[in-house]
Each structure stands twice: as structure tokens, then as C-alpha cells.
């Protein structure tokens, strides 16, 4: 598709970093951090990262439905500090967030703090240096930081989701600046996420997740059942979109925790089933208003809800997802999702 009418606009500005950043601040074209000026030369260099034509339309981005052309994605990639070789990954991620099941309209305009989490699998992760080990969702890795940041700038600058305007988040969350990591496939005792989601092991993919936050779980549990119990008890929380709508909870399992499950002989599906069963919550724990919302959302799935109904966190164990990532340590992370969203995985092209 071609969208020549949506070509990026150029501005003549003084060649001065502070002045350019001032302009970006005044026009609200940034995320609050200093930007790399997207000069014509830098954008051209960025575009060398893909064989795709600059005016190809990748997606329309809600809620403003701005045209995410390859060129506009490249401009935001420059702003964020990306290298040209990151561009195909950003193009794939932009296509993924626009898939209807991801519900970008809901996510971009909600009061919920939901952020877009990018999970990278396959050879591209290592090639680009996307961190999957120590501090993988923290600071320090150029690829993680700038790819996640570029995604946010695409959502804001092309999608029009400016805080306080179309982005109605009550508080937001730090992950709205950047949230990107790779799966630690070498230390994953099961098949990696992208294989589980239908891709070949040698393919490169990006998975986009509507993440409501991150909750660390530090446990020295050594038995699979006990580990599953404490993780499941963390997942249970009454003011949760997941129990109201039937969500898609995500976990970042540390390699040590994944190994405990594996040593017990549990498959990935066994872990999912165990967490799903153990995280069922008595509906009476919801507030009266949330009970009304859950009835509106889940009666078709679960029948009439009473206070004694045991609500599953998702419609089936298959919708409990986890990636294995992080360095050594007894920490795993619960990533509750927005509720009305389903993650999308896309192959990363050339």
C-alpha cells in the first residue's frame, strides 16, 4: 500500500541540539526525554535498514488513525536513538499492534496504565543485542531501551495518543517509556514463545503484549507445586481486569524457576494448567461494581455468576503465557494484562 499523501513533513530549524529539543518539547512530539533530531540524512540512513519503500503503509494507528508509513516509523526510530538494523523489527511491531485482537484503540485511550511490551524471539534477538538476561526489563541495553522507546513514540506521534488528550491514563506507568526484552531461549527448558505460537525456531518474531504492569515475585520455593502456588496467589487480585473480562496473564519466569518446573517433569502446558487452576478466585472477592462488570463480560462463558463462582483468570489455561528470561536469581515477574486484549506475534522481515 502506498500513502504518499502521508509523507513526513520537514521543518527548517537552526542546527542546534538544544533548540531542536525545545521545539520537540513545545510541540509535544517527544516522550519527555531528549531526542535525536531526525534530520533528512539520519532518516535516510535509518531507511537503509529495510528494503521496503518509504511510503509503504504499514498500519493505521489508533486512536488518531495516523498512517504509519515506513518513513514515519523510521523518523520515530531516529528520535528514539535506534540503529537502522532495528527498523524491520519496528515495522513488524507496528503491524502487530494494529491487529484488531490487540485492541489498540482501547489501550491507547483508556484510563488503565497499559503499556506495550515487546518480546523478541529468534536469531534477530542476538543479532541486534536485545538483552534477555540480567536486568532484561531494566536499563542498560541499547536495543531494549531504544526499540521500546521507538514503539511508544510511534504510538504517541503517529497514533496521536498524547497524555491528557487522547491518552487518558490515570497514572500511566514507567514501562510506557520503554518495555522490550528478548526471551532467554538458550536457558529455556521448553520450546520458546514463538515456537509455541506457531513459528519455526529459526524464525525471528516480535510479540506485542498489552501489559498493565510488572509485579516481582521473589521466592526460594524448591518444589514445583509450592512454586506454582505462590505465583498463582500473586496473580489473584480483586481489582483486576483479567478476572472481570477473562484476560491473558503473562509471566517472566526466571531460568531457576523454569528449571524447578522442568525437573518436576512438568511441560509448559502442565505449568499453565496448574497456574490457571490455582489462581481461580472466588467471585465474591470482587467489589459489587466489578461483579456487575464481570457478569456483563463473562456470563456467556461461565453462566450466572454468584459470589461463590470460582473465576478463572483467563478463559482457558492456553491463555496463560510465560517467557523465560532474566539472569540468575529467585525472581520471576507477573505481568497482568489489560484484559480486553490478545497478544499478537509477527515475523520480523528483512
Amino acid at each position, binding site marked *: 500500500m502506498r500513502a504518499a499523501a502521508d509523507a513526513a513533513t520537514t521543518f527548517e530549524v537552526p542546527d542546534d541540539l538544544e533548540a531542536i529539543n525545545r521545539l520537540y518539547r513545545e510541540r509535544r512530539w517527544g516522550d519527555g526525554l531528549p531526542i535525536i533530531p531526525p534530520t533528512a540524512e539520519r532518516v535516510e540512513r535509518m531507511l537503509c535498514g529495510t528494503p521496503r519503500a518509504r511510503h509503504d503503509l504499514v498500519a493505521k494507528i489508533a*486512536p*488518531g488513525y495516523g498512517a504509519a508509513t515506513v518513513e514515519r516509523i523510521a523518523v520515530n526510530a531516529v528520535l528514539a536513538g535506534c540503529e537502522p538494523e532495528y527498523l524491520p523489527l519496528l515495522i513488524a511491531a507496528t503491524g502487530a499492534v494494529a491487529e484488531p485482537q490487540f485492541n489498540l484503540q482501547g489501550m491507547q*485511550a483508556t*484510563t488503565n496504565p497499559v503499556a506495550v511490551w515487546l518480546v523478541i524471539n529468534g536469531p534477530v534477538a542476538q543479532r541486534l543485542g536485545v538483552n534477555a538476561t540480567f536486568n532484561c526489563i531494566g536499563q542498560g541495553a541499547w536495543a531494549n531501551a531504544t526499540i521500546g522507546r521507538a514503539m511508544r513514540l510511534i504510538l504517541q506521534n503517529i497514533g*496521536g495518543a498524547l497524555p*491528557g*488528550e*487522547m491518552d*487518558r491514563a490515570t497514572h500511566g506507568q514507567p514501562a510506557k517509556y520503554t518495555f522490550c526484552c528478548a526471551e532467554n531461549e538458550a536457558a529455556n527448558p521448553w520450546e520458546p514463545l514463538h515456537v509455541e505460537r506457531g513459528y519455526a525456531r529459526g524464525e525471528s518474531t516480535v510479540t506485542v503484549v498489552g501489559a498493565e504492569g510488572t509485579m516481582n515475585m521473589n521466592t526460594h520455593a524448591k518444589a514445583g507445586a509450592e512454586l506454582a502456588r505462590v505465583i498463582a496467589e500473586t496473580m489473584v487480585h480483586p481489582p483486576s481486569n483479567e478476572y472481570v473480562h477473562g484476560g491473558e496473564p503473562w509471566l517472566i519466569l526466571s531460568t531457576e524457576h523454569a528449571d524447578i518446573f522442568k525437573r518436576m517433569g512438568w511441560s509448559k502446558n502442565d505449568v499453565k494448567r496448574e497456574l490457571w487452576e490455582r489462581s481461580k478466585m472466588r467471585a465474591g472477592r470482587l467489589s459489587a461494581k466489578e461483579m456487575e462488570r464481570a457478569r456483563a463480560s463473562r456470563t456467556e462463558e461461565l453462566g450466572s455468576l454468584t459470589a461463590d463462582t470460582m473465576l478463572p483468570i483467563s478463559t482457558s489455561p492456553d491463555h496463560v503465557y510465560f517467557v523465560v528470561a532474566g539472569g540468575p536469581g529467585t525472581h520471576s515477574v507477573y505481568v497482568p494484562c489489560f484484559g480486553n486484549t490478545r497478544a499478537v506475534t509477527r515475523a520480523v522481515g528483512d
Partner: protein
Amino acid sequence: MTKRGKAGVTVCSTAFETLGRAQARALGNAGLPIAVIPHPFGSRTREEVREIAQKCAEQIAALVSEGAK
């Protein structure tokens, strides 16, 4: 709906008015009639909701009549 000759009015709370108007502009319908109710809405008593609904109905009627002119 308006394009199909039907009267259409969007109702939203004050907290979402900016979003509603910005999105209407973005989608090429800057003149979209929007009736605005006070925010928050969920914590109101039945009496308060009735009062809000009454005022909102008047607002909707006014917006529809305006659109018909």
C-alpha cells in the same frame, strides 16, 4: 449514522470529552455532536443519575435539533 440520514449523538463524560473531540477530528468528523455528562459517573446515587440523565436528554434533544437545521 449521520451520513446515512439518521440523527447521531455521542454521549461521554467530562473526563473523555477531550478524547472524543480529538478522535472525531482525527477521523474527519470534527462537528460530531457530543453530549457531555459529569465525571465520575459510576459512584453517583440513583437520584443523581436521574438528574444527570434528564439534563443529558435535554442536551441530546438540543444537539439533534441543531443538526436538523
